[in-house]
Structure formats: C-alpha cells, structure tokens
C-alpha cells in the first residue's frame, strides 16, 4: 500500500466521522419535530403536502397500516415507472426517438428503481429518453424514503412502551423528502456542476476526434441525477459507465465528494439511533462495528489490488502500480478500490471500476460486503436496520450467557423477535444461493455468463447478491439484459426488499407492546468494545458460514488456482 493511497482512504473516513454527529443530530431534530434552521422554508411546504394529500400528520399507524401505506406507495411508484419506460416512444422529451423498453427490461428497471437497488440492465444514454431519465430521478428521490420510514418505525418500537402504534409513514417520508433529500441533493448538484459535471437538456454532441473518428457525446441532467444517486444511495447513474464516466466524476475531488454524499445519511443515522434510544454510546458502538468492517475490507481489497496479478508478473509485465485492468486510470487503485468497496458497503451500487477485473481476493471483499446483507452502513435506514437485526441475534445468543432473558435496549428478546430476526437472515440466503444455483444449472443462466469456471460463478453470485441486497452494482461480465437475468434479478430485488420489511415491522410492533426493563449491573451492555467485538463476530461468522462453500468455488478457487499457476 502506498502512503498517499492509505492517507486518501483515512482522510476520507475522517470526514465521515466528522459529519456523523452534527448531521445525525440534525436528522434527530427533523424526525422528533424539534426546530431546525430549514423550518421557515420547509414547514409551509410540509403543511401544503398534508393539505393536498389529505394526510392527518397526528394520525398514528399500527404496524399493518404502516406496512400497507409503504407497499401502496412503492407499488404506485413501480407501476408509474413501468408505464413511462414502456411508453417513452409516445412521450415528450425524447430527442433521439428511443422506442419503449421491452416488458422484461421495463419490469427489471422499474423494480430496480422502486426498491432503491438501481440495478441497470439497460444502458442509460443509449436507450432512455430524457423523460425516462427524469422519471428515474424521481424514483431515486422516493425509493430511499421508505427505508428511513422503516427504520423510524423500528426505533419507535424499541423506545415506546405498552404502545400499539409505530408513527405515521406519510409524515416520515414527507419530512425526509423536504428536510433531507431535496435540500441536500439541490446543494450537492450545484457543487457537482461547480466540479465540472454538465446539467442540461441539450441534444447529444457529435464530434470528430483528433484521430479522425466520429464520436457522439451524451448530454443531459447529469449533475442532478448524480447528486441524488449518491446521496440516496441509489447508484443508478446517468451513464452506463457510471462514475467512471468523465461527466459523472470529472475529477478526484468530485469523486470524493460523491463518496461523502453516499456515506452521509447512513453514517449519520447511527448517531440518530443513539439519540433516539437516549444513549449515544449505543449509536457509536454500531458505528464502530460498521467502520471496522468497512475499513478492514477496503484496506484488504486495496492490498490485493496493489499486489496485482501473479500471471502478469510472470510474463515480465511491469505491474508495480497494481492491478490496473478495469480501473479508471484517472483515479488509480486506491480511489477506485475505495469507491467500489464503498459501493458494496453503502449499497449505492455506483461503480468507478470494473469489479469483474478485480483480483479474486479483491472481489472476495466486494462479495463479502454484499453478502453481509448490506449492513456495513448500507442504504438509507435499511442498512442500520439490518445491523440491528444482527445485534438482536448477537444479544440473544450472548445475552443468555449473562444469565438473564436477553434484552436489547431494555426490551426482552423473546421467541417472536428471534423468529423475525432469523427470517430476515434465512430469506436472503435462500434467495441468493437458490437463484445462483438455478442460473448455474440452466442453459439460459449459463448463456449469460461472461466467463467459464470460478469467475463465472462469481459473476452470477454477485448479480443475485447485489439484487437481494438492493445494491445495484454489477460485477460486469454477466449479460444482465437477457430475459433470464432481468426476470430473476428483478425477483431477487423484490424479495430482497419487501419480505424483509414485514418481519422487521412485525418485530417493531411486538417490541413496542413490551414494557422496558430498567438497566442495571446485570444488564447485558450493548455499548462499548465488548459489544462491538460481539457484533462484528456475529456479522462475520453468520455471513461467512452461509457463503463459505460458494466463495470457495468462486473467488477462492480462482485465487488458489492463480497462485498454483493453473488456469482458473
């Protein structure tokens, strides 16, 4: 590892650490209705939204009503987007006269953007009209809101006593949109423009290059889309090349700014969580577990990428700069690795390098980040929620060891909670492994693989892990636009999001009904290093136990075949 590379990564993370407390405190104020500096601007808008939609902000919802509201909201977005994509040929703002998408591609894309996955089986600039791109931007604003609402419902479940309601879904998403998503994305878009990204609705530009060949340069509202795609941990870029495209990330400063945007909300929510439960140490403990997983993964991947490929080395090729295949040379291994481990951790799915070309162990880190269930910060609300599920399981197993019925933040963890937490882990494992197995044993699935052998296995595994985790980044290599993959990955995205919501909300309702046990010396401590270590152990062991066999046949087989000198 090089000193500037390590410094870049550490410096970047120091910025995240710095903004977590103030931003998390701001979010806490927003959701508890405390005054904020934006109130004068936004309160009238909030009131107008409620008046227009007929929502009574004081109306509390039971968990089933909350879930219903969430599903209706998401389904409406999904159907609307599907309609726009199918009908874009007949709709305005289509200067290049692109026809409507095929049903499977439209389904895949609509599901992808409704679930905050933003898996892109289509190529943005080569198949979507400006209106379709704008519809995608709208979904990029809306889809993260549900995640926050879920988290807030869960936090209310943790802190309320003898209660039967979990808040109001419409209020949660309206506040998030007006106080968080719109203002920050707006400012961030301006910053991105200042850093060199275009923002226009101009026709594509045709140029003759110095070499004399013709090139079409895509234009469009790039800054706006990039801003919300990173802030909302969406990852659906304007361009197919995503952040590696010079318009999406014109320079390292822009790239780092986008990284900070992506981390901002998930990191800040850990502090909000601490405030919410009345003990910020609880939030920092979760933050620490996430940070350790993130940094360990990033440095490991960076190390493997710098170590390069032994096969090239043996051929006498100078690989002192590391594995540069598939990396954007403007950013080099450190930034590229940082960006792509971040993308798999924070679940925004935008990439700055071709993951397909990572060294096997480098890609192992990316896969592992995905397979934890996207709990290393993760996307808005959902990442923290997933981590809290791990925390509940950790508390249950280890909590018995202190000789009391396990409790988390004063709430007893009973059979019902364990059942729901287990469900949130069983279902994704089942879907990821099941669909990967299906892809690797059917002709349609095998036809889409870009490589044979261990690498092909990694490609398919990555696609479903990314789908279930609602990450949206692609390993590359895989032909994701075939009907087999558009349908199955679409299914993975749906199952990855909604069936996870139901047990989490049901658990929140069960927790809300409970009385809280006051803390004492006999209470299992869930702050401090012991708990951080326990939580880390839980995430690593549970995830690793599930996926060790498949990873052995994928990246590990590839790695050891390389070092052994054989073909993978």
């Amino acid at each position, binding site marked *: 590892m090089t000193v500037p590379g390590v410094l870049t990564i550490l410096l970047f993370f120091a910025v995240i650490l710095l903004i977590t407390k103030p931003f998390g405190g701001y979010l806490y104020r927003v959701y508890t209705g405390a005054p904020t500096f934006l109130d004068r601007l936004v309160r009238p808008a909030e009131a107008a939204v409620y008046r227009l939609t007929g929502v009574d902000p004081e109306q509390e919802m039971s968990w089933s009503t909350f879930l219903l509201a969430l599903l209706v909201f998401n389904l409406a977005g999904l159907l609307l987007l599907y309609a726009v994509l199918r009908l874009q040929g007949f709709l305005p703002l289509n200067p290049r006269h692109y026809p409507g998408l095929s049903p499977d591609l439209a389904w895949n894309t609509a599901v992808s953007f409704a679930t905050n996955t933003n898996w892109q089986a289509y190529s943005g600039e080569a198949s979507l009209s400006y209106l379709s791109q704008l519809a995608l931007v709208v979904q990029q604003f809306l889809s993260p809101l549900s995640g926050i609402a879920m988290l807030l419902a869960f936090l209310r479940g943790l802190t309320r006593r003898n209660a039967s309601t979990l808040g109001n879904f419409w209020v949660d998403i309206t506040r998030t949109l007006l106080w968080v998503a719109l203002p920050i994305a707006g400012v961030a878009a301006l910053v991105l423009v200042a850093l060199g990204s275009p923002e226009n609705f101009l026709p594509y530009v045709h140029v003759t290059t110095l070499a004399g060949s013709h090139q079409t340069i895509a234009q469009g509202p790039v800054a706006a889309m990039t801003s919300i795609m990173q802030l909302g941990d969406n990852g659906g870029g304007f361009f197919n090349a995503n952040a590696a495209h010079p318009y999406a990330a014109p320079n390292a400063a822009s790239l780092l700014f986008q990284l900070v945007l992506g981390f901002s909300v998930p990191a800040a929510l850990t502090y909000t969580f601490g405030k919410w439960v009345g003990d910020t140490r609880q939030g920092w403990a979760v933050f620490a577990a996430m940070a350790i997983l993130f940094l360990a993964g990033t440095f490991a991947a960076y190390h493997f990428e710098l170590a390069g490929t032994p096969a090239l080395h043996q051929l006498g090729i100078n690989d002192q700069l590391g594995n540069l295949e598939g990396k954007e040379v403007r950013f080099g291994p450190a930034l590229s690795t940082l960006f792509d481990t971040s993308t798999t951790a924070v679940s925004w799915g935008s990439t700055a390098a071709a993951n397909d070309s990572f060294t096997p162990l480098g890609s192992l880190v990316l896969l592992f980040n995905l397979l934890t269930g996207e709990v290393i910060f993760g996307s808005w609300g959902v990442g923290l929620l997933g981590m809290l599920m791990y925390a509940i399981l950790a508390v249950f197993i280890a909590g018995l060891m*202190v*000789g009391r019925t396990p409790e988390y933040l004063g709430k007893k963890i009973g059979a019902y909670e364990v*059942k729901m937490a*287990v469900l949130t882990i069983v279902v994704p494992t089942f879907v990821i492994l099941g669909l990967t*197995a299906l892809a690797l044993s059917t002709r349609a699935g095998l036809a889409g693989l870009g490589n044979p052998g261990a690498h*092909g296995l990694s490609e398919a595994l990555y696609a479903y892990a990314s789908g279930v985790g609602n990450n949206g980044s692609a390993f590359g290599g895989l032909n994701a636009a075939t009907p087999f993959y558009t349908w199955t990955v679409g299914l993975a995205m749906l199952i990855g999001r909604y069936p996870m919501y139901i047990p989490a909300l049901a658990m929140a309702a069960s927790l809300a009904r409970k009385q809280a046990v006051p803390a004492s010396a006999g209470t299992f401590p869930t702050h401090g290093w012991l708990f951080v270590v326990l939580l880390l152990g839980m995430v690593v062991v549970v995830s690793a136990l599930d996926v*060790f066999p498949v990873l052995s*046949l994928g990246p590990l087989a590839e790695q050891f075949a390389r070092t052994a000198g054989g073909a993978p």
Partner: protein
Amino acid sequence: MSSRTRRELPFWNGPLMRRAAGDAWRKLDPRWMFHNPVMFVVETCSFLTSADAVRYLVQERYASFAFVAQIALWLWLTVFFANFAEAVAEGRGKAQAAALRGTKAQTAAKLFVNGEVRSVPSTQLRVGDVVLVEAGDVVPGDGTVVEGAAMLDESAITGESAPVLRESGGDRNAVTGGTKVLSDWIRVQITANPGETFLDRMINLIESQSRRKTPNEIALEILLAGLTLIFVVVVATVEPFAIYSGRAVGLTMLVALLVCLAPTTIGALLSAIGISGMNRLLRRNVVALSGRAIEAAGDVNVIMLDKTGTLTLGNREAESFLPLPGASEAALAEAAFLSSLSDRTPEGRSVVSLARHRYGLSAQAYSLHGATFHPFSARTRMSGVDWQGRIIRKGAVDAVAEHLVAAGGPDPGDALRRMAADISRSGGTPLAVSENDRCLGLIHLKDIVKTGLKERIASLHTAGIKTVMITGDNQLTAQAIAAEVGVDDFLAEATPEKKLDYIQQEKARGNLVAMVGDGTNDAPAMASADVAVAMNTGTQSAREAGNMIDLDSNPTKLIDIVEVGKQILITRGALTTFSVANDVAKYFAILPAMFIPIYPGLSALNIMHLTSPQSAVLAAVIFNAAIIPALIPLSLRGVRYRPAGAAAILRYNLLLYGLGGVVLPFVGIKAIDLLITALGLPGLR
C-alpha cells in the same frame, strides 16, 4: 448459607446409565425425534447415508462402502448421544421421583360421615371431606387442619426427620398427604382430589412428563431450527455449484457437511439442560411448579427478603448494658441478670448469658430461696424478681416507665428516652431495667445477621439485583439493619398491603420480583410476584399462591434459586455459542476435502493438514458426535455461575466458550485424524 441438600447421584451410576441407554434407543423413533428439529435432520441424514452405504455394498465398491458406512455409524451415534443426554437427565429425575412414590401407597382414611368415622380408601377422598388422623396414621391427602394439633413426621417430603407441629388456625395448619402423625390427633379438611395433590404434582414434575418448554427455550429452539434451515439451503446448493464447477461431490460428503454445520451440540443437550435445572433445585429441596418459574428466577431483578429468619437469626441477642448516669454498669448487669433468670424467651436467655460471660455472674452465687419470680408475659411486657426487698423489673422501655410511676418513683425522663432512641437508630431494641423506684439503665438487644449473608447480598448487588428487606420494625431500626446487611432498600412497618403495593410498583417499572412467603396474608403479594417461593410449613393458600415450594422452609434459599435460574440460561447460551463457533474448524476440515477433486489449489484451505479427504470428513463427524457425551456432565451440572456484573460474566464466557469453541475443534479434529490414520481404518484413502 449452607442448606441441606439431597444426596447427589454420582454421574456414572450403572443402573441409571443402562436405563438411559435403553431409553435413548427407544427415542430413535422418528415420531419422537420430530419434536427436536435439529436432531430430526441428523436422523434423516443418518437414514440417507445408511442407504448410500447399502448401495455401495450392492455395487461391490467396498472401499466406498467402508467409508460411507463409518460416516453413517457416527451419524447414528450422534443421534443416539443426543437421546442419551436427554434420557440421563430424565432418569436422574425419575430416580428422585421413585423415592417419593414410595410414600404414595394407598392408605385407609377415617372419613367423617354424618358425625361418624368410617374407613374408606384414600383414593375416594374428595375436596371438602373431613378426616380424622391419629397418632401412627398417614395423612391421606393434602388438607388443612380444622381441629386439634399434632406432631408430624414430614421426612417423606422434606427428607428432614425432626418432627414438626401442625395445628388448626394460624399459619401452620397445612398438612401434606403421605406425611405421618406421630402424636395426638387432628381433623383435616381435604383440599386436593386424588391425583392432584402436592405429592402427585411433585412426582409428575420430577418425571418431567408434564415439563413444558420455557419461553427462552422456545426462542432458542427457533434460532437453532433457523440456523439448521439455513445450512440445509447452503448444503443443498453446494451440489449444483460443484456440478457447474466440474464434478459432483456426492451425498455422503454433503450430509457430513450438513450435520457438522447444524448446531447439533446445543440441539442435543438443550432439553437435558432444562430438565437438570429442575433436578438441581430439587436437590436443594425446592420444588418448582413450572420450568418457567425457574427461568423467571434467573431474570429477577428485585428480591424481597423478610428480615427475621431470612436476613437475621430469628432471635435478638443482648449486646451490651448501658447504665444511666448515677448507676454503675455492674449494678445494671446484676439487675438485668436477676430479672431475666425466669425469662425463658431467647432474648431473656441471651441477657443471662451476656451477664455470665462478661461479668462472671452465676445463679449459684445468690441464695435465691424465697424469691418471687415474675416470668415474662405479653400483658405486662416485663419479667422480674422480688427478692430480699429488691423489686427488679426488666422490659419494654414504656412498660418499665409506667411501672416506676405506678410504684411512686420519678419518671426516668428524657435521658433514658434519648438513649433508647440511639439504640433504635443503630438497629437494636432497648430494654429498660429498674430496681425499686429507680431506673438503672438499658439493655441493648441486637439483631444477629446470619453469617455469610452480607457477602451474598453484596454479590447480588454486583449482579444487578436489588435486594429489599421487609420488616415489621419501625423506620429507624429498619434503616440501621438495612445498612448493616447491605440491602439496597427496605420496607419498614410492613403490612401485606404495603408488600403488595411495593411489588406492583416495581413491576410497573419493568422489574421482575421474587419473594418468599408462608402466611395466608402473604398470598396476594405472592400471587403478584414473578417468583414466589412458599415455605412448606406455610398455609395451604400460601402454597397455592407460590410457584415454588421450599421443603426445608429456609427463606434464604431464594438466593440459591435465583442462581440456579441464571445458571440454566448461561449454560444454554454458552453451549449455543460453543456450538456455532465449532463450525469454523469444521468448514476448514470438510470444504477442502469436498472441493480438492475440483480445484486442487483449494488444498491451501486444508490448514490442519489432514491426511486425506476421507479421513478429514470422518474426523469432523467423529468430533461432532463425541463432543455431545463429553458435554453431558457440564449440561447436567450447569456452567459455573459467579456473581458478577453482566459485562464481566460475558467477557469470561465469551472467551471460554466463544474463543474456546473456535480453537478446540481444530485441535480435536487434528487429533482424531492422526488417530484414525494410525489405526488404518478401511476406506480412508
């Protein structure tokens, strides 16, 4: 406190083990196995590998047969060991129940029918019948004494041979079927139908036929079933991945992997842990009426302890003589001594003993002929002696003051009352001593805190459990004793209503409350508490309100009960952690063995350098099976519980069972691999 325990059965008890082995064999019936999802999966796997072995035999592939047959054998042993663990725990309970059943023989009862006594079999008695029980008779059923008083031998229930008094009225009116009247007679109203008596319930419980799973046990079972389900999915998808990668791994390998990954260790021992918890309490002579109550005991965070008999010895003792100004200590001591000679109460005897030891006084030194003794009575609240013109009295401060005024003397005044208040404040009780018309001073009676109790209260405090002392004493005295014992809170001048209020307040705050009770007026508070231990000497209504009964009637045992409750939970958590941690090493044994034929490079994962793929898999399976019987003693005994803060306990157990659970199987599997390689078992190419 040392409490008498029943004789502990040695772990290797021959007949018990043989019976358990037979039971374990019978439990292989899949219909029975179905109640334990983890072991049911293992049994299914055993069937599958056995069928696979037969297939190889038919195909005459003897090397493969030898390997698969050995795997099948060890899988069957895994199931057998799990059943054996449960059977051993049940067997130990049954052995204890058998002793009780001996007393349950049918007896003849003397039933009153229209005022006449008629002899009927005890099985025909119904609730409300009144029977006569005379010396030499066995009490025919549970009931309440409605008339008379008798000495009973309750050793059949309590194991304690000293006779106890049972009489009508008051808090000692409950009798238990199967106990024996030694002298006198009593009339008993039957309070339980045959088959529902205390003894019946105890036998049922101990035989664990009616043992229902506790909430934590159910939650843990769900987790284990969930983990098993995940591993079924993981293992089932290995085969398509392997086929894609070039070569199927085969049924036996997959099954071995599944069984090793599934949490078989805790799955096998879970029910044994629960059963043995009840047995451990029974050895301490406590019968829990449900497993749920034992578990709740581990969760308790407030313990209400009666002062008298629990925290302090029942009787107060004289500690010092405090003369008033103008009187000498020796004169006070002598007066106190003489006035207490006729006082047969423990307090009176302690005054005599203090005077004898500290001032060398003895009754022989006085010619007490002609003395008139006034023994202590509740009416006068004094005792004393009239001797050689000296009128000496000793008693409650206001009683003595009244006596002096009546005798024409001066009121002892403020000095005496101030001294008396000082004694109260220090947790003692003052007694005044007077001679003729003059008050000489005070005797300081002190509550004696049971030895070793302060340490136990302190350890409860460390474990985050709040202790509350309940006493009828006034606020000042209660405060002083509370401070001396080290309890966190106290309830002075306690009445049944105050107790109930206190419990409900604590429960509203989310705390779980444990208490001990014996009297009828304790019943409402007991019914409200989460853990209520009834004393066996208590009334029927107290026994019914409690969810545990202490046969020794030793209220200090509540602390033991809490510790046993915690121990059960800790044992479950520790073995679960251990079981899951084991999986790491098993992966490193089995995965390379499975995949080396596909990718030879993966031999890099064989970090234990196991001899061959076959020996690696067999070693992992053998380790997985053998760890179960190895841990049976631990699950029956329970993990050691040291009272400490949760963080300290967690750190210790996490290190021992978490880290230990990761490391031990690496060592164990390697050792077994070396052993089976050296033995040259067939089929391990």
